């Protein structure tokens, strides 16, 4: 479908989208029916279901043929045909890729059909049974559409293209027509394309039949030649591993790194660091407070106390001593006042009374 878009086959793309919806939906529901009937999803355990689940088998086969693009009788045949025709005219590489795709599709789908529905049951533990009607009716409807839905878009009378015009507009179709004009070919039925496409599908079916139906070619013998391919494919081309190793691992690493940063740098170093720093500051402050600030306070107290203790020796309570000290003090002060008056002659100290007159 996407391939068709790439080669300007817009109508073909939408057409294939529609037919694909029918047969692929049938295939999924059919697989569901098989899983329901057998209780397993492992193809290796199935086999011989054709007899036990005839409705499922026949509708599944129809859808498979449609997917393989068997011409004229299936819807997928018409839409695949249309895409391949467009690709044939626009891009040969895309065309051959499409043919290769048609071949492999037919091959693996018939491998599936043979392994599941033909041969003998591989696991006798499984007692397969046909699914109830509620599951079978949709299968029949979808299988019917997988055949007949294609007739609206045959290259001989393309009603589908006509009905798409109002939606896509003529512009998109003009691109294709221009491309086709340049290539000097016309759209519509193209015999070589038809033959190549059909042969690719039939070849795929034929090879699958050789291996899994007629057992002419033993799968074990192919092992050495194609073993490496099987291994790569079995591991889905290692794309999941590639994602795991690159994107997912990188994302988890980023997440772990960021969490480490959050936990240790932001929270531990910065936030707790600020907290710890405040604690250190508070300890230093506490030391300063106890030793310097409070030390000054205590020093004042100590000085007062010491002075008090020293002066205590003077405070004896003996009156004679007090009178003696009084007299000595007065004498001392008189001497000082006298000296000041004599030396300075003019006393500028206001608290000393003018004593000059005292001597005159």
């Amino acid at each position, binding site marked *: 479908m996407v391939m068709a878009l790439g080669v300007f086959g817009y109508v073909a793309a939408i057409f294939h989208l529609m037919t694909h919806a029918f047969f692929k939906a049938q295939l999924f529901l059919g697989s569901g029916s098989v899983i329901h009937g057998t209780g397993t999803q492992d193809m290796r355990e199935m086999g011989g279901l054709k007899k036990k689940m005839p409705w499922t088998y026949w509708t599944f086969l129809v859808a498979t043929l449609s997917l393989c693009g068997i011409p004229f009788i299936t819807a997928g045949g018409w839409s695949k045909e249309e895409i391949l025709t467009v690709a044939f005219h626009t891009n040969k590489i895309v065309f051959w890729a499409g043919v290769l795709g048609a071949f492999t599709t037919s091959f693996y789908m018939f491998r599936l059909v043979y392994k599941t529905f033909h041969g003998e049951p591989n696991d006798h533990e499984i007692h397969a049974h046909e699914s109830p009607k509620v599951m079978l009716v949709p299968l029949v409807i979808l299988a019917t559409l997988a055949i007949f839905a294609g007739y609206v878009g045959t290259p001989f009378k393309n009603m589908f293209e006509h009905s798409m015009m109002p939606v896509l507009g003529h512009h998109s179709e003009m691109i294709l027509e221009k491309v086709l004009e340049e290539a000097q070919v016309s759209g519509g039925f193209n015999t070589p394309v038809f033959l190549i496409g059909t042969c690719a599908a039939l070849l795929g079916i034929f090879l699958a039949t050789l291996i899994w139906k007629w057992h002419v070619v033993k799968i074990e013998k192919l092992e050495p030649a194609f073993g490496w391919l099987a291994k790569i494919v079995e591991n889905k081309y290692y794309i999941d591993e590639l994602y795991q190793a690159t994107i997912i691992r990188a994302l*988890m690493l980023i*997440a*772990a790194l*960021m969490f480490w940063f959050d936990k240790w740098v932001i929270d531990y170093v*910065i936030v707790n660091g600020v907290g710890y720093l405040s604690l250190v500051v508070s300890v230093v402050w506490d030391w300063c407070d106890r030793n310097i600030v409070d030390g000054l306070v205590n020093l004042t107290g100590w000085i007062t106390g010491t002075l008090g203790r020293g002066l205590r020796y003077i405070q004896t309570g003996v009156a004679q001593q007090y009178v003696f000290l009084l007299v000595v003090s007065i004498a001392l002060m008189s001497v000082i006042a006298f000296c000041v008056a004599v030396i300075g002659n003019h006393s500028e100290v206001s608290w000393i009374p003018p004593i000059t007159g005292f001597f005159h």
Partner: protein
Amino acid sequence: MDPTNHWILPLITFLPLLGAALIMFVPKEKPSVIKALSILVSLVPLVISIWLWFAYKHGGAQFPNGVQFGIDVPWIPSLGVSFAMGVDGLSVPLIFLTALLTTLSLVYSTFIEVRPKEYFWMFLLLETGMFGVFTAMDFVLFFVFWEVSLVPMYFLIGIWGGPRREYAAIKFFLYTMVGSMAMLLSILAMYFHTTAAGGGHTFSMLAMAQQAMTNGDAVPLNIAALVFWGLFLGFAVKVPMFPFHTWLPDAHVEAPTAGSVILAGVLLKMGSYGFMRVLMPMMPGQFARFWWVIAIVSLIAIIYGAFVAMAQKDLKKLIAYSSVNHMGYVTLGCAVAASTVGTLATRSAALNGAQMQNFSHGLITGALFLLVGVVYERAHTRDLSAFGGLWAKVPVYAGMLAFCSFGSLGLPGMTGFIAELSVLTGTYAAAPILAGLALIGIVVTAAYMLWMLQRVLLGPLNPKWEKMPDADAREVISIAPLMALTLFFGIIPSAVMSFFGNASEAIIRVLHP
């Protein structure tokens, strides 16, 4: 339905306090009476908040010119402090969110057996604080309630918390205090540069915002940047913005379940509410000048928060870090709304988205924390590697957890998607590179949420949880309303966005006169 009713806001604010006072008279030997009474009391503000929701007149003038249900009586006239309250489109949804989450948290908490009297008392006090912040129109009043809401949460974490509760409680308190003090200083600076109509300075938030409308900022240019960053610090710690967020994982993890719900659901919103109520209208010049700094820091929060959440092994810590991631959109929306690029429409979209994310995160993360509590009570561990395969064992619980996780990762149809879409629309218009980088955060969010679901619900069942009972009625009753509203407002966002539109435009007109 009278939008000029003066008494409705003081009533809703102080009713829980009255209830708390009532609880003091119930003897502590009757815990069931205490629990029933608290839930009954909390129902009254819930009913009033719903009434407020419908009575609020849309399309009217917004802050600062028009607030509804306003009341303004002098409180400390000598300082220019008044008891002023009022609501606009910014606050009505948050008041409803507060009332709802409180009631649901109380319902959820009925299993509490350790000192239930104090617990329920604290919770109602907390509700008063939260209502007060969302209704105050005077800065002193705002600050008082801002601090009041801090105290009960400190005790809720410190008494009913986990093993490291003392550390978490003091870290929460001190960290917020640092922010509060910077904010207080900035408030004082604004106070001294705002003159009331009758002369003298005023703490009126309306007057400050009005002044900013005419002057470009509420303070002169020479100190404007300092005042701006002071206010910013106060709110950024609360949001919390990178790199001020590390109190959050500790507080959330150690808090009791209902405490985490209120913490994530309402207390963080006080920070982003501050952005829209204070920082943007009062410092529009500086906000427009520094919008890119806030945008980049928000972007870091989005991407960094998502990655750190992905690295978590503890379920509750994962949800806690998802808050850092989600609140990043709120601040990003605010920053972009102030950008000089884009149009009025894109800036409005960003700010609407920021408010929507605020509201949505309250609903969804509230529910997620309740859900973490549910499983913790059963398993007594939150270690993600200890779970697995619970879906088959506890389908109701698993369904709720899956629903809320999808809401959190922004699934279309739920509120988170509308919020992120709006924010990203505005961001793209301002700077496409920011929107592109924010998408990394969205993808990683989806990754860690789905991975969490996978580790808890899918895979093989740990035989230890063979007998784990499913969510009971109490738990469903407390979580289901949040889920219903997440879906309802996700499908009909206009039911709540109608509040945001006018408020956003009013703020943006101040930012870009």
